[in-house]
């Protein structure tokens, strides 16, 4: 019992770590994208300046544009929305970094997952003007839900598939489970899924890992046959390294011989 508890804990730690790693990676990605965008903007300006013919003297009457932008509210939790409202004067065009060209004045609702600066650039005959609104996104202690479907909802809808002893064939009674799982996944095409293959405690560690891989794969193939894109499905074998039930009985072993579906985060 204790060993298994430890193992499960171990498994959870591993999963948490991977998730955190993933988040760190995605943060890094955002920073990179922002950096790259900034560089492009700078480079673009240079180019324009270099390529432009000697500037005609600006019409004496063209006033310099002005720009202002607000974010409301300016502090949110992940998943909440922010309304950006902006105004410009004497501008021919306007754009917001990260959003693109926008009308010269207007509002837009955004759902940032990370704290962000929204920089409005207004361009007119009289030159350019910029204004920035900052939105702070409070990161909760736990990982943010990337979708409003959480593990619990997911597992209520996408049920595991159980296997016979030493077998990875989809049983007739599992076909209806597969159909329901597939229809839920087809209704939620944004979800990516880990198909985990599990074995009971009997038999040998290495062989069970290979058998678990075959179980995960059989479930994946069944979902693919039911119309789920294989790109959304990733298989991982847990062999007998992780158990759902820890008694030494046939009913418990049956619980452990399964393909389990979890959100791929």
């Amino acid at each position: 019992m204790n060993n298994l508890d430890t193992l499960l804990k171990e498994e959870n730690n591993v999963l948490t770590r991977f998730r955190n790693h993933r988040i760190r990676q995605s943060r890094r990605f955002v920073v990179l994208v922002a950096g790259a965008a900034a560089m492009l903007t700078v480079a673009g300006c240079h180019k324009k300046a270099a390529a432009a013919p000697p500037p005609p003297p600006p019409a004496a009457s063209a006033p310099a544009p002005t720009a202002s932008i607000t974010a409301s509210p300016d502090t949110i939790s992940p998943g909440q929305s922010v309304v950006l409202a902006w105004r410009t004067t004497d501008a021919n065009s306007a754009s917001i970094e990260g959003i693109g060209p926008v009308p010269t004045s207007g509002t837009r609702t955004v759902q940032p997952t990370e704290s962000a600066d929204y920089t409005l650039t207004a361009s007119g005959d009289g030159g350019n003007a910029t204004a920035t609104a900052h939105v702070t996104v409070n990161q909760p202690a736990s990982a943010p839900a990337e979708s409003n479907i959480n593990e619990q909802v997911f597992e209520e809808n996408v049920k595991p598939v159980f296997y016979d002893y030493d077998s990875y064939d989809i049983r007739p009674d599992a076909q209806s489970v597969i159909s329901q799982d597939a229809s839920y996944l087809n209704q939620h095409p944004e979800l990516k899924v880990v198909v985990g293959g599990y074995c009971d405690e009997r038999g040998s560690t290495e062989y069970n890992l290979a058998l678990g891989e075959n179980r995960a794969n059989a479930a994946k193939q069944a979902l693919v046959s039911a119309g789920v894109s294989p790109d959304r499905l990733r298989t991982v074998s847990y062999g007998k390294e992780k158990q759902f039930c820890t008694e030494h009985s046939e009913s418990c072993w049956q619980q452990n011989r399964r393909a389990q579906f979890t959100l791929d985060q």
Partner: protein
Amino acid sequence: MNGKKSPLYLFSPFCVSLLILIVAPALHAQDWVRTGTNLGVQRIRLAAASFKPMTSDVQSLPLKSIFDQTLYNDLKNAGIFDMVSQSMAPPEMPGSPQEIHLDQWAAPPSNAAMVAFGNIGVTDGRVTVQGFLFDAKNPQTPQILGKQYSDIANDENTRQIAHRFADEIIARLGGGVNGICETHIYYVSTRSGHKEIWVMDYDGQNAHQLTHLDTISLSPRISPDNSRVAFSSLGRDGWTIRMYSLTLNRIVHFVSPGGTTLSPAWNSDGSRIAFSSSRTGDNEIYTASPDGGDLRRITSFRGPDVSPVWNPKTNSQIAWVSGRTGLPQIYIMDSDGSNVQRMTDGGYATSPSWSPSGQFLTFAWNRHYGPGAPGGQDIYIMDIASKRWIQLTHEEGANDFPSWSPDNRHIVFQRDDQIWTMLSDGTEQQQLTHGGSNTMPNWSWK
């Protein structure tokens, strides 16, 4: 049932004839007969005298005690000696050839044919050992060995000196087969809270943790030159093979193919690695160079294929486990995938290890496996040419992952959650590890 079976079952007429059939062709090269079965060959009666402390340094007595115990255990574990128990030894502590009375050692009750003796001292933080091996039945020119060792004085070094002296004695008296006292066992332990790769001396001493990956790491396999450990480890994208360098003390480059990749195995010259990978969707056996390059697939059947091991004598054959006909069975094939031969005739057979002599497989087998069937997973050895087998463990826990010692005389294996060793005839079983879960042992090549 009569509870524990005594090793005498081996002497039933059937077993005896079986053993003779198995070992007869190898008599010229192997000492397996002598060491494994005791048939027809008397073990050498050997006494290990208490070593004489030569200095009064405070470390002397504790180190002497460690030395005496390690040497005695090493010689006893070797499987080729009939050890004189300490209570039968003459009441003397000879520190040098001048001090020994060989006639007393040769006489009853010790009846020693050979005596190992010597002295140990600690000076200026260094331990020095002089060890001798004398032939008690040849008083004219009794000396067979005289060795001197010196190292920084600590428990670990003292144990290593005893191992080296024991290996000298075994090499001299053991038919030219080197001893295993300086070898190591790599294994998986949960003592840190995660399944990590650990290593210990062959006798279970000096255990320490190698990897700190905080995930699940399994199936450690040490390279023939003792420089790297290949193992499989669970990462974000499932199981990959990873490589730990014992010279750099860190993970080094290995390109693991995609999919669930498991159970690495070195060939005996370290030039190829075999493993199981599901990169095509079904676990198959592949071989690759030690950095993961030059990948070659050598099996293609529906069903799990896993746990390959090379014939270390030739590197031209691979034994592995396949579920192509249902329950897993042991198969062998040429290392290019040709000449597939099934070795086991039923039940649930896994975890092969090929003997260094090339002649035998050892593996875990449950001959009456099925839903609802009781446990009974035991270690067996099989003569490859004849496919005749012998059961080595009986009605004691679930046994798995046997691994041969380089001298062919020992097998280390997992019983339930701990690591045990035995002679390769199944006798002298002893538990090496205690505490936590310690599994999947792999014996080093030297």
